[in-house]
């Protein structure tokens, strides 16, 4: 009886969120991405010293910013989980960590592609590169913990505690790594009077970031829904096991 109710509930929820809403987001993402690519490849001027290679910037930096934003969402969701033990918060936590890791991977892959022609090397243990790599390693470790913990109430609890640990570790990492090394170009965004970009470059950057943010929303919504369905499935299994015993 209960099982039937949960199953109905499941399909009702699936109908409510439906593919409709996500389809709109996907459409918006595709249009924005096309615009961003046109801005980055065709409209933005070619940078004077770096040449064509600089254009990877419009993917590289939005990738990092979007990844950081997703990790911040992961921290908020984890704290909410620790206080309220809400399965929804846990679903957001796993969705944001996975999506954040994907966007940070874009940043980490495009970085060396740019660095090879411009710096002459693929990788250097510079402060910002190292910190990004450390963040990537942390959230990979977070997902691994989720993967290796048996499903049930324990998994979200341990994952949330780990997320809080990693969040507080990030500023300490920042200081340690900055004292240890520093070659990355100085920030062009909020980077002082001589830093800066041509207006058309800004447009390409904002377009790229807007497209990435929309993709982040799409991926996180899909992953969130999948995580929620997973939770309901586990619930059903537990209920069935309870009845069988």
């Amino acid at each position, binding site marked *: 009886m209960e099982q039937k109710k949960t199953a109905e509930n499941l399909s009702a929820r699936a109908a409510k969120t439906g593919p409709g809403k996500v389809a709109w987001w996907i459409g918006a993402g595709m249009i924005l991405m096309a615009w961003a690519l046109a801005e980055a490849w065709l409209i933005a001027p070619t940078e004077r010293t770096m040449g064509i290679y600089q254009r990877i910037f419009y993917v590289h930096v939005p990738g990092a910013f979007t990844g950081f934003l997703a990790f911040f969402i992961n921290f908020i969701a984890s704290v909410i989980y620790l206080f309220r033990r809400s399965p929804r918060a846990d679903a957001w936590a796993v969705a944001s960590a996975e999506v954040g890791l994907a966007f940070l991977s874009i940043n980490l892959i495009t970085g060396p592609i740019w660095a090879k022609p411009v710096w002459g090397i693929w990788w250097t243990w510079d402060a910002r590169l190292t910190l990004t790599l450390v963040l990537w390693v942390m959230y990979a470790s977070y997902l691994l913990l989720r993967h*290796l913990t048996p499903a049930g109430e324990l998994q979200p609890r341990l994952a949330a505690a780990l997320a809080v640990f990693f969040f507080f570790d990030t500023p300490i990492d920042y200081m340690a790594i900055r004292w240890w090394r520093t070659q990355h170009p100085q920030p062009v965004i909020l980077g002082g009077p001589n830093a800066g970009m041509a207006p058309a470059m800004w447009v390409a950057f904002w377009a790229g970031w807007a497209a990435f943010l929309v993709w982040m929303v799409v991926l996180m919504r899909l992953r969130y829904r999948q995580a929620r369905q997973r939770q309901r499935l586990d619930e059903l299994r537990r209920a069935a096991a309870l009845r069988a015993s």
Partner: protein
Amino acid sequence: MSAETATPERLPASARVFARVLARDLRLELRGREALNAMLFYALLIIVIFSFAFEAQSELTIHAGGGLLWVAFLFAGLVALDRAFLREIPEACLTGLRLSPAARPAVLGGKMVSSFLLMTGIELLLLPLFAIFFNVPPGARWGAVIGVLLAGTWALASTGTFFSAMSVHTRYRALLLPLLLLPLAIPAVIAMVQSTQIFLNGGSGAGYWIELLLGFDVIFTCLGLLLADVVLEVG
């Protein structure tokens, strides 16, 4: 070692829990001695392997002594940290601990200190061997090195014990512990390696590394104790 009988009853309950967990863990390790011997031998082997992997000459110690020392300590320490909660598995001790009304931060704190003492003991035994095998330059400031060793070991012991409580529930327990601890410990590792390196060469001016290490110690000890309920909860 007789904290159980000597603890005055007027101490707050959590202090008694802390002292008993600490005394019990140390007694178990000192009586069994399996982990202690294994850890010591393991760390010794790492140091020996290092001298084959890299030419063990004074120049190496001058450039990378701090790193070699801490890699050996880190891996030996992982054995102790893994055991911190593995010890509770036989006879369902873990379930007993989690069901007991004892304050969980006190239980975790007791285990943090027992891991710290075990690791420090091993490290102090290994330090002279390291000095001999790697021909540490005569001007090394050993007092300062031991100071870094204490602060660095606390950083690993406090966070590692917390993660030990976490990983004891998981599949591939022994593998997951380093996978959780190493990413978190990166800033602490940078600080302890850099400051140890400076002191081994008889230098000074590692103040900011020490501050960073102590900051790490304080932040994660507090965070671990605050979240002790989360990892030791029944469920």
